[in-house]
């Protein structure tokens, strides 16, 4: 039951219960077998919980796809003071809208995942950092946390195991960059959301100067299922290197956009034409951004054999990111959309690094000039040059993310740019 549409090819693990308001309640979540995994995990040695997650092959769903069990094992073996778990619910990558649904339909799934993870990494306190705009979702989550506290599932001596874990729902205040893990920690500490230079890595020095692990909402939501049914069970879905199911956020020009939970490795063309109902009559595929606005754009030919797993999308020439599939039909004005994305990065750059602060602004200005029909062919070289200087030269990868759609769109949709430049005419503007 993904939301708002269902499809028979979905494999519903995380999205089971979406669209059913009863699953928001503790009672409803327990009726689906909820909190059994927590009971089980708290009575397992923490090393075994980590091993099970390693065995599942679960990879971080926040964008980078780093193996979750391995990340957990970076935490200190011997605890010397407070340790923290941060749940990244700052979801603000354009095209991504899965965490919001997880928060508002199955809040207890996230709470359970957070508690299991906190046990595994010996965290005393979990902070769920939600983007400030998530008023409705956060109200639902906060209510569910309250219920879980009342039932003795969070707090002191959880379920009589002697384990203490606190959990706090924290709201940000509007800044895309706070989704970057170290910026999130700075923001949580009451500072500007500026990414930190790594190393030190969060597992050594994280939030409040203490060892911290940070995971995405979807990553943590998968954990109870893995603990309950085992890592091998989770591996039954997906591919060898990209195991399990993934929530695909499909937006743009398809008939039925929305979230769909599918096994990793699902063919992109089936997602577009079968699951999402294809395009409106008379329209056809022009381009796809498969992983949120930070990844290279794919043209129709590259979509042909692309499978949606971490390796498959790289082979096709892009990245899976957070599986935010933005689909564009032949009426799309590519230059305008790229300019809009770059405007976004220019607005959201935290300003610490010169290539990013200046580069995004320059790119936005040049793209607008081209869009308005005042560009030159040299401008495209300038853009590519700028992109090179912005890649791999900064504290975080926001800068690289801004350069990726520019470089890839110039490479793949050069004719769209040329048409604007040569004729001052916009391709596709209806």
């Amino acid at each position: 039951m993904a939301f708002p549409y269902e499809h028979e090819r979905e494999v519903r693990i995380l999205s089971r219960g979406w669209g059913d308001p009863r699953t928001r309640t503790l009672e409803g979540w327990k009726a689906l077998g909820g909190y059994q995994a927590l009971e089980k995990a708290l009575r397992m040695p923490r090393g075994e919980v980590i091993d099970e997650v390693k065995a599942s092959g679960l990879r971080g769903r926040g964008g980078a796809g780093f193996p979750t069990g391995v990340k957990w094992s970076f935490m200190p073996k011997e605890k010397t003071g407070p340790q923290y778990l941060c749940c990244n619910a700052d979801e603000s990558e354009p095209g991504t809208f899965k965490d919001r649904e997880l928060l508002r339909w199955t809040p207890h799934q996230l709470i359970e995942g957070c508690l299991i993870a906190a046990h595994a990494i010996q965290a005393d306190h979990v902070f769920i950092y939600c983007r400030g705009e998530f008023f409705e979702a956060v109200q639902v989550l906060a209510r569910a946390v309250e219920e879980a506290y009342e039932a003795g599932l969070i707090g002191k001596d959880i379920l009589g195991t002697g384990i203490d874990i606190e959990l706090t729902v924290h709201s940000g205040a509007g800044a895309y960059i706070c989704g970057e893990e170290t910026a999130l920690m700075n923001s949580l500490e009451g500072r500007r959301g500026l990414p930190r230079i790594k190393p030190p890595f969060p597992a050594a020095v994280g939030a409040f100067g203490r060892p911290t692990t940070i995971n995405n909402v979807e990553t943590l939501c998968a954990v109870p299922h893995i603990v309950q049914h085992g890592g091998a069970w989770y591996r039954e879905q997906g591919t060898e290197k990209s195991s399990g199911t993934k929530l695909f956020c499909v937006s743009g020009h398809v008939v039925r956009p929305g979230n769909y939970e599918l096994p990793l490795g699902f063919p992109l063309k089936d997602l577009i034409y079968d699951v999402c109902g294809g395009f409106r009559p008379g329209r056809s595929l022009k381009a796809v951004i498969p992983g949120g606005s930070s990844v290279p754009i794919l043209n129709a030919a590259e979509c042909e054999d692309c499978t949606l797993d971490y390796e498959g999308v790289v082979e096709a020439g892009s990245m899976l990111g957070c599986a935010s599939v933005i689909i564009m039909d032949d009426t799309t004005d590519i230059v305008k959309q790229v300019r809009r994305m770059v405007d976004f990065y220019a607005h959201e750059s935290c300003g610490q690094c010169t290539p990013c602060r200046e580069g995004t602004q320059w790119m936005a200005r040049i793209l607008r000039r081209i869009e308005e029909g005042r560009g030159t062919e040299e401008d495209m070289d300038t853009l590519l040059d700028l992109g090179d200087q912005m890649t791999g030269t900064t504290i975080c990868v926001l800068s690289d993310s801004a350069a990726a759609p520019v470089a890839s769109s110039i490479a793949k949709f050069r004719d769209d740019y040329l048409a604007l430049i040569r004729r001052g005419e916009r391709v596709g503007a209806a």
Partner: protein
Amino acid sequence: MSDHTKASGPIPFRNPGWAGNTGSFDLTEAQVRGDDFVGVRPPDGGHPSGAPSYPYMKADKAPDAPLFEGPYRERFEKILTRYPETRAALLPTLNLAQELRGHISPDTMREVAVLLDLPEAYVRGVTSFYTMYNKKPVGRFLIQVCTNISCNLCGGDEVLAAFLKHTGTELGATSSDGDFTVMEVECLAACGTPTAVQINSRYYENVTPDGVPAILERLRARGE
């Protein structure tokens, strides 16, 4: 290749009020928004675990309200218990101040600095970093239209234009009756139900230019 006929078939589309498309589901607006589970949240914040996470924008603002008294004081004190350092209470405290007063004026920054024992310049620096803090007063309804890529592909620019036209305002300005301020916003994480619009703290999804007058009507009538 799979079934192409679906593309031209009927599109299942249900919309309970303004909470978004419910596609395959039959749900009321209250069920989609979660109101029936959450109920009315107390201004004191309920359990301390959720005290930092309450609404940040209400229609009725009290720019001169003290920081903080009564239930708001209770909530502020609950917030202070949740973090290992007082500094971490800064964002939640600013959120609370904005919920009460509607914007964060230089005076508010000064008061918050005193409350948390932080330098005033520091509080200014942090406040100016985050876009959700209104640096000047806004209308009863702050309308934020997403024009980022997924919404833009489906007409976000036109929806923004419709809001400006029907409220008779310019971008960022407040209408003469003090009711509406319209702004552009970056992705709201509701890209599958474009165009996404946030009005005060609420999301309105699947908004089309034609739907704008009815939304404004509803705001005037219901206050949310």
